[in-house]
């Protein structure tokens, strides 16, 4: 049951994603990619429970490593995207 429910969410999200991204103009493709990088850092919320929970030592350290890596993605991705978008000026 849980598998089909998760799959349902996946399929809908993919369609929303296609519709949204299709409308992004070519000018913004680089910021789109770095912004997407930041969003893929969402793994951090999965890793938090591993890093701070009652787990085996291995799982805890893997969780902490994942939090660290995903945070690099999140912070670095959003910051560099903002830096780029600030340069896009109208006349």
């Amino acid at each position: 049951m849980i598998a089909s429910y998760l799959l349902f969410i996946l399929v809908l999200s993919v369609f929303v994603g296609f519709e949204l991204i299709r409308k992004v103009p070519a000018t913004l493709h680089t910021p789109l990619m770095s912004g997407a990088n930041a969003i893929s850092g969402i793994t951090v919320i999965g890793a938090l429970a591993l890093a701070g929970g009652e787990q085996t030592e291995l799982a805890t350290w893997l969780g902490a490593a994942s939090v660290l890596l995903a945070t690099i993605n999140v912070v670095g991705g959003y910051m560099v995207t903002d830096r780029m978008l600030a340069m896009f000026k109208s006349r």
Partner: protein
Amino acid sequence: MFDYSVLINFVYVLAATLFIFGLKLLGHPATARKGNLLSSVAMLIAVVITLFSKEIISFELIIASIVVGSLIGLYAAKKVEMTSMPELVSLFNGIGGLASLAVAYATIASDQTLSTFVIIVSFIALLIGAITFSGSVIAWAKLSERIIGRPIVFKGQVVTNIAVVIAIVLCGVSLVNNPTDSTIPYIALGLAIVMGVLIVLPIGGADMPVVISLLNSYSGLAACAAGFALSNNLLIVAGALVGASGIILTNIMCKAMNRSLVNVLTSGFQPVVTNDIKIEGEIKPLSAEDAYYVLEAAQNVLVIPGYGMAVAQAQHVMKELQELLENNGAEVGYAIHPVAGRMPGHMNVLLAEADVSYEQLFEMDEVNPRIEAYDVAIVIGANDVVNPAARELKGSPIYGMPVINADLAKNVFVLKRGMSSGFAGVDNPLFFKQNCRMIFGDAKETLSNLVRQFAD
């Protein structure tokens, strides 16, 4: 103790909504910055609310990891040069893959009994994460010229690839049968890392925009698969959005080169196409002084930049020249081919950095129908993307690729170092056309020279 799990899930719905609105606002340069901010707010509330979950009992490691990660991210974002954005995005793709890999591995290695479904999705997350990681590292090394850019192939590569895939599938099957076996995940991990390397090695430097887009997509899919392993909705939604974005960009890049994804991924295996088509005409060089007289009289000027402009760091001088031309009464526009630069939209960012307004940046399809109206087209460091052979020379390796029809403008100036051919290694008949003049030399120096002529 109050159970926050219901609240957490509601906040996840809010975060997913904000991600979607953020991407929507990214659809226009005027609102894009707000969209990025909205997306980052979504991430922040998702992280903060997750900290309330009852599984989390200690915070020391979490805080330490977040602080260190933020500092590294901040440093990278502040330091990177805009010319090196492709390298940074590659590294970030790899880091995202590694993060998902760690989560998947921790799930597999945990001492809880897992359902077959969770084992399979964790295994998939592990694989995608590992392939994304090693593939991105190779892509980064190619982009930063730490390893050679041309396709790397060896004898028996195809057989090796197939063997690796079969071995990975066998690992998956035996893991499902022996979920507690701790050596199988190690073997699968190693194989997947080899797989990532094997996928990217045979891809040439010119095809890097495709590879980066594809790996971008993988990093999202890895997060998505990790979401399945943890039954976390928000991971699935956000990962799917990133996956979809990468797939769309991959598709746009492939179309812009008139090639299929399969062709890009395997082109290293194919013999080099040689064409003996003779090009008629002769090369006509022009001095910057003479170019100035033509530009002074021009009403409509189109600039067609390629990666060579970025290498020469000529975008800032070009902007100076643009202002002088505009003061002289000319209209100036920039035509940007989808695969100009090393990643999608790279040229646009470099020009934005040089203060060129985004309203002056045109896509190929906007420019081509009215290209005859331009008095001068200045091609800076671009070659294949303006090659008319794509339109008129059947049998040319790039025949059929959509190009900017620079040769149809009234005059064409090509700023070029020498007569070497482009990435694709194809001769360019544009250089031999009646209306084309070559201005040899470093693009930055040539443009500075033109700026000086205008100032006098």
